[in-house]
């Protein structure tokens, strides 16, 4: 069975649970709010050869328990949905045990706690993206006027500004002059990520198990296709097939980052290309909200993910 952990009222958690129910899959759900009160995790890792079967334990409820050997895969939305919860020592302990379970569970996990961290700094991902064979935008990360001015002036057009971290930010296009004018006298520039604006079509590729690639094209005039309404634009999402070398680069990237569910933001060059080095990767979302893409582009992401998490070890 699939273990799902997250807040019951979080959109994607609810969406995936509904899919599992509708398709009559066997699953076990742990509401994040119950960790440390009604649900406890019991994990035991004795000395012995590495491999499946070494991690033992159970998910314990007040009157029953489910052994880890009954679980085929785990889907986690822990930490999403802005859950307000009293962080008692018991709650904090069980959250830590849940993170440990995600890292140590021998079967498929979307996603392991540690593997999700790469999204905390976009340039860190760029090292992995380049190694996978895709391009990244010319980028400057820092808080220095001295570097920012020559970088901005060398670009073709005004640069795009966005957060360095995974903090949600509205992507904007800014001019050097406007940014300089908005600075507070005597204050250093706050850290920012400046990069060239890339011409082409936005593509979101969801990669499941570093194997299945489900891509969709976002057709819009907006700079940030996730928020087209803020600039008075619309967006049209439709399923698409990536050229196989590009799909393979996405698989390599997912594997390198250790994520079993990746949301890879790509830009297809104008006129198209099957060469990965012509495609720009903006970032890899390690906790992707795939519901919007599934609903609007008809991609069967939940089904493919459920299939993957149902796959027992070794099969």
């Amino acid at each position, binding site marked *: 069975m699939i273990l799902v952990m997250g807040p019951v009222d979080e959109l994607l958690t609810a969406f995936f649970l509904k899919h599992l129910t509708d398709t009559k899959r066997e699953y076990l759900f742990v509401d994040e709010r119950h960790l440390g009160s009604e649900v406890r995790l019991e994990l035991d*890792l004795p000395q012995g050869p590495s491999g499946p079967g070494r991690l033992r334990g159970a998910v314990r409820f007040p009157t029953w328990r489910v052994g880890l050997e009954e679980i085929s895969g785990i889907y986690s939305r822990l930490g999403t949905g802005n859950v307000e919860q009293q962080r008692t020592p018991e709650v904090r302990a069980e959250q830590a045990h849940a993170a440990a379970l995600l890292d140590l569970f021998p079967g498929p996990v979307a996603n392991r706690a540690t593997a999700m961290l790469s999204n905390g700094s976009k340039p860190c991902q760029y090292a992995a993206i380049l190694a996978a064979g895709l391009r990244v935008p010319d980028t400057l990360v820092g808080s*220095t006027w001295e570097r920012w001015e020559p970088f901005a002036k060398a670009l073709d057009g005004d640069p795009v500004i966005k957060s360095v971290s995974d903090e949600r930010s509205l992507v904007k296009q800014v001019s050097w002059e406007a940014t300089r004018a908005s600075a507070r006298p005597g204050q250093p520039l706050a850290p*920012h990520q400046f990069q060239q604006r890339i011409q082409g079509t936005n593509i979101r590729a969801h990669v499941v198990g570093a194997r299945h690639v489900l891509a969709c094209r976002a057709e819009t005039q907006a700079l940030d296709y996730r928020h087209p309404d803020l600039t008075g634009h619309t967006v049209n999402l439709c399923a698409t097939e990536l050229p196989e070398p590009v799909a393979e680069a996405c698989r390599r990237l997912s594997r390198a980052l250790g994520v079993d569910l990746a949301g890879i933001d790509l830009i297809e060059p104008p006129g198209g290309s099957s060469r990965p080095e012509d495609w720009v990767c903006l970032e890899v979302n390690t906790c992707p909200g795939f519901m919007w893409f599934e609903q609007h582009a008809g991609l069967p992401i939940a089904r493919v993910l459920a299939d993957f998490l149902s796959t027992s070890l070794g099969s």
Partner: protein
Amino acid sequence: MQNPACMPHLVLVGPESFPFVRDVLRAEAWRAGLRVVEVSMRDWGSSVTPWVEVVGGRFRAGLLGPWGDLELRPEDVFWCIAEGPLPPAESDYLDSEHEALREAFHTCCPARVINRRGLLQPLWTTAMWRMLAQKLPSPETDSVLAPPHFHLGAPPEDGQRWTRWPEEAETSMGQVWWTVPEPGPLRQALVVGSHVTLWPLEFEEEPPTLPLALERDLTRLATACGADVLEVLLVPSGTPDASARWTAIQLGTSPEGLERLLAQEETVALAQVERFLRERLASQEDAR
């Protein structure tokens, strides 16, 4: 004599916590013709801030400090020996941005880096007990190095002596317990590059010898962790029929044990670190 402006740099962050290690680094840098730049933990992230640039798929990175803008190139060497939390920013958002900038520098800096940090490096993202659980024993059947028996939750009442994993208790409140069957005397292994030494931490009549199989497993462990300098606390242990004969009970990335040995004028440890630094400061293999 080389023009100092053209000399490659050895940039050290947080060396003030390890004065004996710092002395060796300074001496070896001078010998190799590298100019030493030292950034204190207090200055790292406040008066000295990093930048990272990628143009045409090529990374550049540097540090802005009182000296101006110091770009680090593949011929330079960087070792962040110790770093603390960044000074608080005006908002949580800016805190995250400063942290992300520092992580970006650690990951993407094109210099030769000793113990590279960053979000792609497991030693800096994973709790140490989980590193032991994940990396040991190595899948090879001849492994002699194992992690302790770990248990999460209330400690089992099985008559064994269970000890709480201290860092986890301090940071996440996780209840992580460990035990080792029949532990022998506590020892410390120092893995520096491809060289390993073993040191007693309790009184022992004879200095411990380093079995070849243990040396091989410790080198494998450091490689699996992506570490150039790794300190491993370990005990000989286990029942006679167990295949693993050593248990690693802690990993350390800051050179505390090395500092102690250098302070005690242990010539073997000094020779070990000098040999590593001579190889590392002369080679350009690790440059990105």
